[in-house]
């Protein structure tokens, strides 16, 4: 059977574990640069705060109801996510980490035991070990486990755990799931399905195969087959190797300065190259892009350029020089930029890249240098050693004005406990 374990309001729950003043209060977490609401507790939901709402638009609501606002603290969320996944791996050898706060598990129980009991054990264990509340949905397929999880989260009686395994309630659970909430059904298909009178997951399950295949391809048919209880979407236990590595951010404030853009591009390239080396890959192409702020009035401009890396490289200096020359080609001084990014493509395992015909010694020394840089940064924290001198503070730096301490990853930021 498949269990889908999903953390409740994950980012807010992480904040709550370490800050007792947040218990029982409405809490929201904002996206990069404190732009939009990306997580909210049930108390914040009850106030009518919508997912994705721009923070400045609900300033009055926040003030009036004493909503607690946090910037995103990805170091904390990443560490807590790893702890949750570690707990889950006690229950199975087949775990698919689906996102930062969600995982599919293949689970088994003895003939006399119930899946609901196992679900409660998982929920209890994760809560005790990490402090993070989760919901568990269980069924024969991934798509049905998602359905079960939807109701586990919402039903008071389920109290966070629902098994639809051989359950008499399965049809009811499907009938009570709006079709747009079905895993794999996007907004475009939702509109089409509604036009044809398909409103719920149950309607979709009972649609004829041919009809589904004609309108939603075999991918849609797979979803429908899974709703009927036949597994066709396998667990992805080892994530597929990435085809692209992108690092991009929106800036703290808009800037027209080439120096600022170069500093940002240098930072993003260094991050992307780190990721590249961690996966033992080399890149064959570098793409640079820059954008003005779409949401502000005024002249708009965005452009990107892709340059070949030959021979393929995983070296920060080489990739950055290319990124800089790309930036120089698309940069126009008359615009205020709000976002930039670097994408590495044409990825191949570094060991398979053809040997260099010249500068081989140089490259070998560089390879050892990069390995040393990565090792030092791994040991002493990010950016202990940087390749080159660039302004690390500037308008381009992403803002996290209300970020909580990084309780689990920085000694200087651990919680204080009163002995009084």
């Amino acid at each position, binding site marked *: 059977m498949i269990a889908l374990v999903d953390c409740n309001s994950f980012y807010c729950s992480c904040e709550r574990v370490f800050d007792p*003043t947040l*218990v029982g209060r409405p809490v929201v977490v904002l996206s990069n640069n404190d732009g939009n609401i990306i997580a909210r507790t049930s108390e914040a939901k009850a106030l009518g705060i919508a997912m994705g709402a721009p923070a400045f638009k609900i300033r009055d609501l926040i003030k009036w109801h004493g909503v607690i606002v946090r910037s995103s603290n990805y170091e904390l969320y990443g560490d807590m996510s790893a*702890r949750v996944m570690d707990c889950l791996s006690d229950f199975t050898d087949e775990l698919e980490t689906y996102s930062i706060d969600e995982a599919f598990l293949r689970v088994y129980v003895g003939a006399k035991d119930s899946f609901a009991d196992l679900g409660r054990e998982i929920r209890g264990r994760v809560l005790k*070990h990490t402090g993070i509340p989760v919901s568990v949905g269980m069924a024969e397929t991934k798509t049905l486990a998602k359905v079960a999880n939807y109701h586990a989260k919402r039903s008071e009686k389920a109290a966070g755990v629902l098994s639809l395994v051989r359950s008499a309630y399965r049809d009811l659970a499907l009938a009570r799931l709006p079709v747009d909430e079905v895993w794999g059904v996007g907004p475009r298909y939702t509109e089409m399905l509604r036009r044809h009178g398909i409103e719920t997951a149950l309607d979709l399950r009972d649609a004829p195969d041919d009809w589904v295949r004609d309108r939603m391809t075999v991918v849609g048919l797979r979803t429908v087959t899974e709703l009927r209880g036949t597994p066709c979407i396998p667990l992805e236990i080892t994530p597929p190797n990435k085809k692209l590595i992108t690092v991009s951010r929106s800036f703290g404030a808009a800037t027209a300065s080439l120096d600022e853009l170069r500093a940002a591009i240098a930072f993003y390239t260094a991050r992307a190259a780190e990721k590249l080396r961690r996966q033992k890959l080399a890149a064959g192409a570098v793409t640079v892009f820059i954008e003005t702020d779409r949401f502000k009035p005024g002249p708009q401009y965005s452009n990107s350029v892709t340059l070949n890396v030959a021979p393929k490289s995983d070296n920060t200096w080489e990739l950055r020089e290319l990124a800089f020359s790309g930036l120089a080609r698309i940069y126009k001084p008359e615009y205020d930029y709000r976002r930039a990014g670097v994408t590495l493509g044409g990825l191949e395992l570094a060991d398979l890249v053809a040997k260099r015909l010249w500068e081989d010694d140089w490259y070998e020394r560089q390879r050892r240098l990069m390995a040393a840089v990565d090792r030092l940064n791994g040991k002493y924290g990010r950016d202990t050693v940087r390749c080159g001198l660039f302004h690390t503070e500037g308008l381009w730096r992403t803002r996290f004005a209300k970020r909580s301490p990084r309780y689990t990853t920085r*000694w200087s930021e651990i919680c204080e*406990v*009163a*002995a009084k």
Partner: protein
Amino acid sequence: MALPVVPYAARPPSTGDALELPFSLACVPAGFPSPAEDHLENSLDIAKYLVKRPKATFFMRVAGDSMVGAGIHDGDMIVIDRADQVKDGSIVVARLNEEFVVKRYRLIDGRPWLYPANEAYEPIEVTEDTDFEIWGRVTFAITTLR
């Protein structure tokens, strides 16, 4: 009686194309072998001693002197294992209203109490009206000696 020496090239490859060599033959010894080689173990790692369950272990900094009798001083770092069982007498971090506190957890006549380890402070009885929750058991206190 000496065993016959079979040259490696004469041995049939075990699997696939690559000839598998035992690891110890992969490097050619020069000089004298270390007499300790057969006894190599990992060096002692203090982190393994302090952290039994990494996923459930957290660190906090103590502010105040109410636990000095238990060997926990102002400014100490404490190790908390959330997975460890809390019993009568355990030292715990608890959430008391809007604050984390470190106390000794006692069960007296079936009722929970939070005890300090310093006579200058009073024990707190946990009643049904107390907004209280055990966060985890304190397993170590680390004092920096000056």
